[in-house]
């Protein structure tokens, strides 16, 4: 699979070139995107866990979310 494209402009000369990322650049980019994906997955898991816990508490109290909010 071809590496991603990179666009480079040298402002001193005005010259713009396009080339494929080197393997090292592509590896660094892939690592970063994987790290971001992992962070997003972790955040989603925490949000899902909180939502589940909230639903569980409401069920034990026998209240809907709106009814619980009206008590606050």
């Amino acid at each position, binding site marked *: 699979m071809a590496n991603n494209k*990179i666009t480079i402009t*040298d402002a*001193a000369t005005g010259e713009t070139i396009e080339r494929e*990322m080197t393997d090292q650049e592509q590896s660094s980019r892939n690592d970063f995107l994987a790290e*971001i994906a992992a962070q997003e997955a972790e955040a989603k898991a925490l949000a899902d866990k909180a939502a589940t816990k909230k639903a569980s508490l409401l069920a034990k109290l026998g209240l809907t979310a709106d009814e619980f909010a009206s008590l606050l």
Partner: protein
Amino acid sequence: MAAGLGFKTFTTGEVLTAADTNGYLMQGINVFASTAARNAAITSPQEGQFAFTKDTNSLWYYDGAAWVASGATGDIEGVTAGIGITGGGTSGTVTITNDMATTITAAGDLVVGTGSGTYDNLPIGTTAQILTADTTVSPYKVKWATPAAAASGLTKIVTADFSASAAVQISNCFTSTYVNYIIVLNALGNSAGGALYMNWMTGTNTVVNSGIYYGGGWSVTNSAATATITNNGDTKFTLAPTVATNLRQNFTINCSNVGNGSQDGNMSSLGNGSGNGIATYAGIIASSASTTGVQFTGNGNLTGTYTVYGLAK
């Protein structure tokens, strides 16, 4: 010379009288080898008499006092090249050439006066140069020159389009010419979402990607609560989080402490989405390495246009 009687068709047996001879037959044009031959043959020319001389193919008439070249000869007897013109001649087809046109040797050249009635070719300058008067330049008194940096206001440094690029680098855009810079990203599209990252560059083309980026901001859309952005020793500035696939955004980024030696480059950014997203961000790098350029990346491929402006001191 007798007066002409016009044209007559003689019939068979008709007697030719002296009046017929003088009035009809003597009214023709006599042909001679030269004017000398004509003068020798016609010693007493008559007013209104015509002659033709073959050496110069000239037609003459006698006006009662002298032989006069008839009006059948052209008024122009020659074409002489004047200033700025070459060629010419006195007979046949004559060609003249505009010398100014042939003085030009390449597209974009200019013909410039070098004195009274003289000129020379001024070769075209380089891209973005302007024509400037300079009386010290001989012999033109004008020259192509790169315009000086503006004393005030914004000066466009570089602009370019980019398409489907995972990374967009602008190297050597920050120098000591300006203290502050403004980068404008127009119609930014991100194939995988709205996340946009930014890195400083140093040297001629080195991306700073170590964990020394600090900053924060927030984003909001018309369908989600405000979200905070935090960079705490990260490898990039996060100008906008992922908010929508292919969201077209316009970013205005103010850059300070860049291009001016050993300073911690810092920036602030405002990104306006296409109607449903806004992101603000401010950040600084924990390094005093001189910042010379900038790189933009997304979590997808970027398409759009950037322009870098320098803000005069």
